[in-house]
């Protein structure tokens, strides 16, 4: 218990990062189980494997900063402070869900936490993120906006259009590209021209920074620097986080047809949670017993959310016409 000084971040911060990553991992695993048991309608897009990216970024944010998320959005929402109970209820289509069951697993939002919604259109949230950054600049309180998106979205026109305006108008906007290697079922390099994603950002006139997206501390440090620069009025930036999703594109895809076993084994060696646990134990912040207790506690919390959501009611049919108009 004596090696704290070598830690790159405060111990309390590292513990919080660990807890949020673990919450995401267990939440995603629980959804896979819920899906297989037929307890949820539709499909789900899971992000286990990618936990360090949303957590590293969101721990660099203030509560009034906003994020927009993607179809693979559960991690972003948990990382920004979203609660697992209304998330799980939403996944199951229950009235107690964040969106009263109207959004579903792909559209979870908690606007009070600055979570402006996950989005089913690849790249579709980039405009919302840029708009939030516009409002933030106008408010002048140092608030920033973060747009999470994947390697697929960097080939959408909206990225270029908003990036152009964000640079022109110096908007406090951080583009966070979670490069999980596969645009649905195709490797990103087969679909993306040029010298990589960061080069594209630099071509638009903003910093393009690449980081190991499975290293939560590295993501946090890179995000923190870009976020603080944006707060100071220095304009937008793009952070590319290289990572992997362990599962398939969605719960119905095992993800094995287009990825090799060897490739996935290499990624497993870089598992974000194992690395974080190793750092916590080696630096003496947590003991192996603490790690085990944390895992048990969070797993129990997720299981409670599953059980509660199962018991919760579906929305009454009368609500179908509510919330169309304000």
């Amino acid at each position, binding site marked *: 218990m004596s090696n704290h000084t070598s830690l790159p971040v405060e111990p309390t911060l590292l513990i919080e990062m660990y807890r949020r990553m673990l919450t995401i991992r267990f939440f995603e695993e629980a959804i896979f189980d819920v899906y297989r048991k037929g307890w949820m309608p539709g499909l789900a897009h899971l992000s286990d494997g990618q936990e360090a990216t949303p957590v590293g970024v969101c721990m660099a944010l203030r509560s009034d900063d*906003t994020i*927009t998320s993607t179809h693979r959005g559960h991690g972003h929402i948990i990382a920004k402070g979203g609660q697992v109970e209304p998330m799980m209820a939403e996944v199951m289509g229950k009235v107690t*869900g*964040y*969106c*009263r*069951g*109207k*959004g579903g697993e792909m*559209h979870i*939002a*908690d*606007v*009070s936490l600055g979570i*402006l*919604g996950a*989005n*089913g*259109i690849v790249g*579709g*949230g*980039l*405009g*919302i*993120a*840029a*708009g*939030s*950054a*516009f*409002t*933030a600049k*106008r408010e002048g309180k140092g608030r920033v*906006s973060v747009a999470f998106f994947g390697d697929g979205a960097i080939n959408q*026109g*909206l990225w*270029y*259009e*908003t990036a*152009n*305006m964000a640079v*022109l108008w110096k908007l406090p906007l951080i583009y966070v590209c979670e490069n999980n290697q596969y645009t649905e079922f195709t490797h990103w390099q087969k679909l993306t021209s040029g010298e990589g994603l960061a080069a594209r950002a630099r071509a638009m006139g903003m910093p393009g920074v690449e980081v190991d997206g499975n290293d939560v501390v590295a993501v946090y440090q890179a995000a923190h620097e870009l976020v603080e620069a944006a707060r100071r009025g220095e304009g937008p930036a793009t952070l590319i986080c290289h990572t992997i999703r362990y599962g398939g594109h969605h719960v119905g895809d095992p993800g094995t047809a287009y990825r090799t076993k060897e490739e996935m084994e290499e990624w497993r060696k870089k598992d974000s949670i194992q690395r974080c646990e190793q750092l916590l134990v080696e630096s003496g912040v947590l003991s192996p017993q603490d790690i085990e207790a944390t895992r048990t506690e969070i797993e129990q919390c997720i299981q409670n959310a599953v059980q509660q959501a199962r018991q919760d009611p579906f929305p009454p049919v009368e609500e179908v016409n*509510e*919330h*169309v*108009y*304000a």
Partner: protein
Amino acid sequence: MSTRELTFAQAIREALDEELARDERIVLFGEDIGAWGGVFRTTEGLYQKYGSDRVIDTPLSEEGYVGMAVGIAMTGMHPVPEIMFGDFITLAMDQIVNQAAKMRYMTGGQVAVPITIRATMGGGRSSGAQHSQSWHAWFAHVPGLKVVVPSTPYDAKGLLKTALRDPNPILFFEDKVMYHKIKGPVPEEEYLIPLGVADIKREGKDVTIVALSRMVHTALAAAEKLAQEGISAEVIDPRTLTPLDEETLIQSECKTGGAVIVDEGYTRFGVTAELAAVIAKGAFDYLDAPIERVAAFDVPIPFSPPLEFATIPDEERIIQAVYRVLEGRRPQ
């Protein structure tokens, strides 16, 4: 109440001016709307009066600035993106249909998305097939959007001011042919016109002509000619498609027993079809003849004037449709 004559463009500009002054959350976006004053002059002088951070010249990025408007609206402001030619609205379609229209519903009511998208419509200027279309019907098909289609300077100003105070995404269509050609009385005093209230532009008893936007003026001219023949046509302007004042349409039909519906959008699956269905259901027992629809031919809007004017409804097509309704009447 004192009034003066304003053009359609001046009425739009005045509504924007007054609302920019009233509510600092309102921000205008568009291509050359700022320093240049707008290609149709609807924002003339507003950049000089309110500054470059409220009347904002954007790059040619319809998807980008409409998308940005969704986020601006979700964070408490009221953006007003302009689509210079309504044809370009296709570029912003995802942001309007999949984002703006659904955000409130998908979040279970957590957010409101107050955006007023101003877009032009209308042909007749030999502008070709990509600068002449009228796409208002598309948006009336999308839950979560409201659609406003004014026909006079008075209506344009009162409805735009209302739209700029409404918490929902609204498509506000302005027929560009009317901007400088249509003049009308506009009160000096402030007024608002609620959305969802049709206006009877001319009272009559023999036939109901329902028309929108510039077609109201064409319908009124047709009604005037018909009056000289002793045919009394009532001209009704719904003014907004969503919400739609069904009751006024049905009541007029119950009175006259015949209906001609006129719209500059396309015929097939268009506004005229929906309004005909509303009238047919609501006034079925009063219908003396099949409902007639007069809308643009289902072709890309042609360039050459004889072709273009053939596709767009005119007085003669409306009059012929009225004749068919009257001839088709069942014996009393």
